[in-house]
């Protein structure tokens, strides 16, 4: 006779500060990642507000040029490594085990270390504002020889990026091991939710390129302090080699920040279209193709550094190839929406906005892939517009949509839908007001990373700044909605969205502290 011991009604787990410091529970660690990411998002966003305030009119108003460079560099670095990447890792921690029917991540203690390295790195970056010479001002790309001339803050940045990279690699190894080994019986790879697929591929990208970043910043460090000359032309080194190596990491990094976004959108759209995702298999292959192609396009960031025409043509065509799998994905999302039984709750609004606006960013990327055009637009505001359409309306808005989608599951409460819709419309309109004029500024020749500019750029800059302030204020509304939902609200029910069909919706809301201790059977 078999008997099962049902766990006691109340889940037993540590409480208080010890719970959060020592937790090995994937849900707790996911929550920590998401709060950390939100804090960094708000801080790096505040830096952007100062940037837009300075650019509101020509001349120097608020900050000197050096301080302006610090703001742009740290804004980029913190948004990429402090906000977007940790947010997606937070989603992975919460959702991957729940979606594959696993009780936790494969290495729970490693998971704890992966998270707690982040505040250390974040503290180093923030502390660098207060050391002699001030924070990193050489751009988030850390190009030598400029990077060689900085003070101790530059070494702190190297250490912080090392720590962030280590955290990412540990997290990625954990995710790969979890997905390949801990899936519930019956869940074959081609039955996994697309979000899990996108994270599996992203984790591989992380393991593949993070060592490159770690190595190149180590080489910077040894050039600065230990007499090597990897990038020092005076010693026989080559500063352009740094750019090649950096973008060999940097372009896949763009996809590290966008592939999980595709996974979130591919989860939200079928739910609110009440249809299965159109072309699941082609989606998996499209994501894999994008990941593979991301390794052979890096030099499109460097068309103006000088390279043979054959090289320019190769990287131009390789970059344009990425439009094909990306087009497959957009087509599949639209086909899923087509004749669906649609409803437009906040997550769906954000998902549809991501599809539309990311496509705009993708198209401006195609424009920049053309060598003769890129030579004209290199280092102009057109590039700033392009990557904000990719990274804000692609990555950040999908993160926000994902938070609205899963927040009822995580907290057990429904968020305030009316405020959510307000947040969506404010964000989307303000985002376009901020960044669309930057295309025109770039086409007119306004260079990026400058605190002052010629008079003819003033009107579009004022519009962009006003949009930016509204965009920033709208995110305060987001924080309010999230906090309000965490503190209480209308019960969400186990299956908040009637079109949702992934495993996490079979659990109560919020899920028990230990879920899927007995694996679910997948048909």
């Amino acid at each position: 006779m078999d008997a099962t011991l049902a766990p006691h009604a109340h889940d037993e787990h540590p409480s208080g500060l010890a719970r959060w410091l020592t937790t090995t529970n994937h849900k707790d660690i996911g929550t920590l990642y998401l709060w950390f990411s939100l804090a960094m998002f708000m801080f790096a966003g505040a830096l952007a507000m100062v940037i837009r305030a300075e650019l509101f009119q020509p001349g120097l108003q608020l900050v000197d040029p050096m301080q302006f460079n610090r703001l742009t560099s740290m804004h980029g670095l913190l948004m990429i490594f402090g906000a977007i990447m940790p947010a997606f890792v937070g989603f992975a921690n919460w959702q991957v085990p729940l979606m594959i029917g696993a009780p936790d991540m494969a290495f729970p203690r490693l998971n704890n270390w992966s998270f707690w390295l982040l505040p250390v790195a974040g503290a180093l970056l923030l502390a660098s504002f207060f050391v002699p010479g001030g924070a990193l001002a050489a751009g988030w790309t850390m190009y030598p020889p400029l990077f060689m001339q900085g003070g101790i803050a530059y070494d702190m940045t190297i250490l912080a990026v090392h720590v962030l990279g280590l955290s990412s690699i540990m997290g990625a190894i954990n995710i790969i091991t979890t997905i390949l080994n801990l899936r519930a019986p019956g869940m074959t790879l081609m039955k996994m939710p697309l979000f899990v697929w996108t994270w599996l591929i992203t984790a591989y990208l992380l393991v593949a390129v993070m060592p490159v970043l770690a190595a190149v910043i180590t080489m910077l460090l040894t050039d600065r302090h230990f007499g090597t000359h990897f990038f020092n032309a005076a010693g026989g080194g080559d500063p352009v080699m740094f750019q090649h190596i950096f973008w060999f990491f940097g372009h896949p990094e763009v996809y590290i920040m966008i592939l999980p976004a595709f996974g979130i959108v591919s989860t939200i759209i079928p739910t609110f279209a009440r249809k299965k995702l159109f072309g699941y298999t082609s989606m998996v292959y499209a994501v894999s193709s994008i990941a593979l192609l991301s390794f052979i396009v890096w030099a499109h960031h460097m068309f103006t550094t000088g390279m043979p025409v054959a090289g320019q043509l190769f990287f131009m065509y390789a970059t344009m190839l990425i439009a094909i799998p990306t087009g497959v994905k957009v087509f599949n999302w639209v086909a899923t929406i087509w004749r669906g039984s649609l409803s437009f709750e906040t997550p769906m609004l954000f998902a549809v906005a991501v599809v539309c606006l990311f496509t705009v960013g993708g198209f401006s990327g195609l424009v920049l892939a053309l060598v003769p055009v890129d030579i004209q637009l290199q280092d102009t505001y057109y590039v700033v517009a392009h990557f904000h359409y990719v990274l804000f309306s692609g990555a950040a808005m999908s993160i926000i949509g994902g938070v609205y989608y899963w927040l009822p599951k995580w907290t057990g409460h429904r968020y305030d839908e009316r405020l959510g819709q307000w947040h969506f419309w404010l964000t989307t309109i303000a985002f376009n007001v901020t960044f669309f004029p930057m295309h025109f500024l770039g086409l007119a020749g306004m260079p990026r990373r400058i605190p002052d500019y010629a008079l003819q750029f003033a009107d579009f800059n004022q519009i962009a700044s006003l949009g930016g302030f509204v965009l920033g204020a709208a995110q305060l509304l987001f924080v309010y909605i999230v906090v309000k939902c965490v503190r209480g609200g209308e019960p969400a029910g186990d299956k908040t969205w009637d079109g949702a069909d992934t495993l996490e919706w079979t659990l109560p809301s919020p899920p028990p502290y230990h879920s899927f201790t007995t694996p679910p059977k997948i048909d």
Partner: protein
Amino acid sequence: MVECLQLGSPLPFRVTARPTPGVREPGLGTAVLVLAPWFAVAGTFFLLHGAWPITAFMAASLAGLVAAFLHVRRHAGDFEQLTLDADRLVVDSHAPGDDRHTEFNSQWVSVAVQTGGAVGAPRLVLRGQGREIVFGRLLSAAEVGCVGRELSRRLARLHQWGRG
């Protein structure tokens, strides 16, 4: 993951704990096959162009991934088993290089769920005949409490029966 087997009522009572449910043959080959050729090509390229630290960092990253899969494979067969019958309480455990078999007289064994340690997680402590062991390395906190309660209930019944 815990399986409780009760063969006849009330004894013997058996609890078997394994590391994770649904763990499958580690996909080490798949994991490495995806990355190793890429690392070999890119690592060699960078090595030849003087950027040798990249090759070293790539090798370290791949080694980390392989170590993770080997760890999963090595511990996939771990288990802890507790069997209670009228005379004995037997605890068996298996981990690589560490097989243990402990027997207690079931009339003299005591069970306690202690909360403590660095992480404040509950531990199931079995004491008897001057020995003390901890059971439940592979159990979640909720399962430790659950097994502890069930075991205490059955031991109490057994002790009453012994006195009667």
